[in-house]
């Protein structure tokens, strides 16, 4: 027995390192989930992006909320016509391993992003449906050509993390090297990630000298850690934990919640039924109760800050009588409005999702619709949400939350509303045409075309039930001078943090 005890205490001591004390110039960020890997080409996943993007790895361009597309590693870019864009790289940029940034690194990063040895999130999410070819003009100039032409190629470049061409082309890296203001020091799996400031960064030296990331999945614990002074920033705390207006910031998080309706099965193939679904929801009642104050009622798939968002559309008002009238009219024409409609909800999709779905179900039941709620885990939900849909001939609505923080509807519209779109519940040739034209257009014309497309989806075909543009909460320690923004969902730039 004494032997056993001494062995146990030895184990205890072995795991003892100095307690975490919040030092000046160091910050601790508590994230809601562990990073499954730290590969820069997976940074389109928000949990990975928040650590890596613009801290360790940088991009050619950067989308700044309120200021539009800004230079980062590229100082300028110009449209050469024929789908070709010329990017001029910043001079004097080095990677944290000491090598200089040149055009070959961009080529390597683009190719690696579409590697056939592994599937990159960024590549799969943003770089599908067109081919990119590159042409190195000189060390600091590169031509990128896309086929078919992409008017938003510079915007796309804000998603591509640049790696040095010395990186492993065949496997994920576990010690990412980038041009950013911080070096990636250590990842103790399950415990923490540490970054520290570089002294040879090309830009302004950041105030924060080192950062530790830890992982807690319970929102109440993340909030408690900031309160107890163990952490400085807790992104993504739940509405009910955001109780202190001094430290808890709310901000639009670029997520839109909607009901995807399969427009091809009765009774959902009738536009009056879809209108009735829209009129029967008291969107307002959720805001400030189950959902946070500041949540906006939605009329489209992307957040209002997106180019081409139609600000003239107003949400469907809550009108139970109108809803019942529409259903009665549809029933009179022989539409089977009393058929059981399955409502698929995704478990753990956002805070309070189950309550939200229960409340929606009862609102629709109030209108006389026969709705049956089924909450499923992500793997099963995918089968309903993406084509080929599981239908068994049943009318089905799928609850989904869509994230578009990239400022352009092109990242949403084709997949959600094109006839060939992976999650599209509609097949409308006119809409296909509108999406294609808007995708190819530029400037003000592009904006106008997208606005028309939004209006058509909302007013004419009433494709889906748009619900809300969501807000997120981040708790920030009072010693920091930092305000979260719409980008905090996908990246968290340590260099923007100052101390009070």
């Amino acid at each position, binding site marked *: 027995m004494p032997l056993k005890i001494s062995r146990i205490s030895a184990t205890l001591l072995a*795991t003892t390192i100095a307690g*975490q004390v919040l030092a000046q110039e160091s910050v601790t960020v508590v994230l809601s989930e562990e990073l499954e890997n730290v590969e820069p080409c997976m940074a389109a996943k928000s949990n990975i992006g928040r650590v890596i993007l613009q801290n360790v790895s940088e991009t050619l361009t950067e989308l700044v909320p309120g200021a539009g597309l800004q230079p980062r590693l590229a100082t300028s870019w110009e449209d050469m016509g024929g789908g070709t864009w010329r990017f001029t790289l910043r001079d004097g940029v080095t990677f944290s391993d000491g090598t200089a940034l040149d055009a070959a690194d961009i080529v390597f990063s683009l190719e690696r992003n579409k590697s056939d040895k592994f599937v990159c999130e960024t590549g*799969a999410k943003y770089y599908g449906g067109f081919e990119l070819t590159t042409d190195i003009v000189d060390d600091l100039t590169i031509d990128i050509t896309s086929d078919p032409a992409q008017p938003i190629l510079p915007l796309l470049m804000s998603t591509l993390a640049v790696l040095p061409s010395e990186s492993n082309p065949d496997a994920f890296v576990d010690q990412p090297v980038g041009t950013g203001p911080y070096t990636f020091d250590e990842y103790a*799996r399950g415990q923490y990630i540490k970054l520290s400031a570089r002294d040879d960064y090309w830009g302004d030296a950041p105030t924060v000298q080192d950062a530790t990331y830890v992982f807690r*999945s319970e929102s109440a*614990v993340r909030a408690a850690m900031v309160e107890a002074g163990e952490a400085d920033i807790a992104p993504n705390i739940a509405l009910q934990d955001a109780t202190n207006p001094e430290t808890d910031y709310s901000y639009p998080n670029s997520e839109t919640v909607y009901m995807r309706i399969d427009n091809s099965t009765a009774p959902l193939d009738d536009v009056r039924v879809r209108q009735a679904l829209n009129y029967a929801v008291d969107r307002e009642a959720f805001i400030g109760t189950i959902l946070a104050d500041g949540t906006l009622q939605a009329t489209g798939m992307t957040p209002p800050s997106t180019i081409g968002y139609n600000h003239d559309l107003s949400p469907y008002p809550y009108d139970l009588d109108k809803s019942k009238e529409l259903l009665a009219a549809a029933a009179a024409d022989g539409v089977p409005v009393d058929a059981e409609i399955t409502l698929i909800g995704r478990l753990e999709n956002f805070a309070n999702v189950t309550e939200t779905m229960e409340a929606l179900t009862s609102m629709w039941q109030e209108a006389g619709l026969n709705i049956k709620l089924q909450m499923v*885990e992500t793997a099963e939900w995918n089968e309903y949400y993406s084509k080929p849909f599981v239908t068994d001939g049943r009318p089905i609505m799928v609850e989904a939350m869509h994230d578009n923080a990239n400022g352009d509807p092109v990242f949403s519209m084709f997949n959600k509303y094109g006839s060939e779109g992976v999650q599209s519940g509609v097949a409308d040739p006119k809409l296909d045409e509108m999406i294609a034209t808007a995708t190819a257009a530029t400037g003000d014309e592009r904006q106008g075309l997208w606005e028309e497309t939004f209006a058509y989806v909302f007013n004419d075909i009433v494709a889906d039930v748009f619900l809300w543009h969501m807000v997120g909460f981040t708790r920030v320690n009072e010693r920091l001078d930092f305000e979260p923004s719409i980008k905090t969902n996908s990246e968290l730039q340590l260099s923007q943090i100052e101390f009070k």
Partner: protein
Amino acid sequence: MKSFLGKRAIASAISLIGLIILVFFLSRLTGDPTNLYLPVDASQESRDRFREIHGLNDPLIVQFFHYMSDLVQFDFGMSIRRAEPALDAVLRAFVWTLQLAIITMTLVTGSAIVLGSLAAYHVGGFFDRIATFCSLIGASAPDFWIAIVAIVVFSVHLGWVPTSGTGTVLHWILPIGVLFIRPFGLIVQVVRGSMITALSSAYVKTARAKGVRNRPIIFVHALRNAMLPVITVIGDQAASLLNGAVVVETIFGFPGVGKLMIDSILQRDFAVVMAAIFVTAVAIFVMNILIDILYAVLDPRIRY
């Protein structure tokens, strides 16, 4: 004893292989992981490439033979999600879990046996009532209650211990405290019940009648007799800790094997699921062998 161990090792190895086969095929019934790994907008081309890279296009039986031939060389494959060898991920987490389980169960065993025996000594007495009440409430209260209330009280308000995480000895206090409660409540009850029977049994009475007035001796004799069900239940509770203490791991950010296993099941990261089950199964099998040996040590009449 030697022949017992030999036979037992063979039988355990066979059931381990059975377990691996069972888990391999059953877990594959839970769907294709492709959609879980790729963004919802990914093209068919990316999906096909993903399946090709991870060998998901092969017939199941071919995948199985690939898996088994790797396994013979102790290669459990790569985790799709974590991009590292599955066994590395599992062993790293299991070391934490094992420490947690050993410390917790040692504390539980010691304290529950003492408290349960004392309660049994005066059945229906004041001490017995209090011990029974507390242990039952502990054993049936939701563990996350205790965990979150403990964080709010001891970390946020009192500031005695860190809220969560790892690093110092202090970090272990809350997770162990929370994990301690349920097995403790259960085992106190089992010890108490078992001791009541043992203390009223014929031979203890005989001993008393013969004039053995020494309480400790009576106690030790009765305890020895009462231990069989106690050890079994301790084993059962230890096994559930070895399988991972999910609530504690989730709330305290403790890097154990339970959350790893759950995430891997939900993400269909089969290599990790298999490795995790393999490692925990070995631990549980070994523990059960030790328990069976302990039966024979405690009660020499038991033969296998």
